[in-house]
């Protein structure tokens, strides 16, 4: 059972790492773009949310699978 939990932890950790770096870059560009042309701010913000959802996709799939592993698979394996 311990290996299942560690697998879930690796999934969560690496996914969070990728998502955080990606979001940081995206947010930085948004701020830069807004500073350059403040009148585009609402449109840029809308597109940022869209891209945020896309960036989050695979890490959140990983979170879903990790939760499944921790709460459904792990209690059933060994222990």
């Amino acid at each position: 059972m311990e290996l299942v939990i560690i697998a879930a932890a690796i999934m969560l950790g690496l996914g969070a790492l990728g998502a955080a770096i990606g979001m940081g870059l995206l947010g930085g560009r948004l701020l830069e773009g807004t500073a350059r042309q403040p009148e585009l701010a609402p449109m840029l913000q809308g597109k940022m949310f869209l891209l945020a959802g896309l960036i989050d996709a695979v890490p959140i799939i990983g979170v879903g699978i990790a939760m499944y592993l921790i709460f459904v698979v792990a209690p059933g394996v060994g222990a």
Partner: protein
Amino acid sequence: MATETEGGFDTTAYIQHHLQNLTFGKLPAGYERTGEDGHHEVLEHDTWTMAHGSEEAAAMGFTAIHVDSLAWSFGLGIVFCLLFGGVARKASSGIPAGLQNFVEIIVGFVDNNVRDMFHGRNPLVAPLALTIFVWVFLMNLMDLVPVDLVPEIMLLFGVEYQKIVPSTDPNVTLGMALGVFILMIFYSIKVKGVVAFAKELSCQPFAPPTKGPAILLAPVLIAVNLFMEIVGLLAKPFSLGLRLFGNMYAGEMIFILISVMYMAGWVFGLFGGFLQIGWAIFHILVITLQAFIFMVLTVVYLSMAHEDH
């Protein structure tokens, strides 16, 4: 692993109970069923029945149906059709009020987005986008209903399992993504023709040489191109379906985990209440965003399918 808290509450069983869909399927003959009182029954022939646990649901195989996901998603689709259709039929061209205003805002919003993103000519796309947006939003909205409320009510009617959020069921989300995928392929072939479509898959990104001695390399390049393009093509519906599923499943899982706190005394219960409210407010953003992303990606994929150079 210790699963009992004070009072003998089994957290793992509670969580797993809330993650199990109401499954209707065929148990094969010879399957041994264990009732709650420990009474064993070996089935003589294939029985069509509701599953009494996740092992039974797994034993039912591919032909099993998640009755609760189907019922809630159909029901919400009917609600959408009745609501929007009713408003459309009674629409007046004066200043809109109340419900008509709300519906017009949504239709205008979807119309703007489709106009921005879709560069083909197809009267199906905007209604499809509206349906996807509102239907996925309604399905996700079910996640805000308290975790135990509907399952407990259904238990009074003798229904053992109930998951009211259809988009936490990967069957539902991947089914919708499959529908979008079929439309993508259909319109690709209809607009571009089979030959151009096949060429698009096999001649990008490495153009195979057609003259000279390098033509011997062409089959290799075509195989490489096909592999990469087909992977890219299949990644679209998979990521579409799994993105929605992952977001909703993780959100629902956190709701269930917070509601486990209610069993640990009133201090934890109060804290859990605040956590639920906070997470639910954050989840409102996730719900709308995921519905919007599903719609935008559908329109973008269909626009790519209609690209006629």
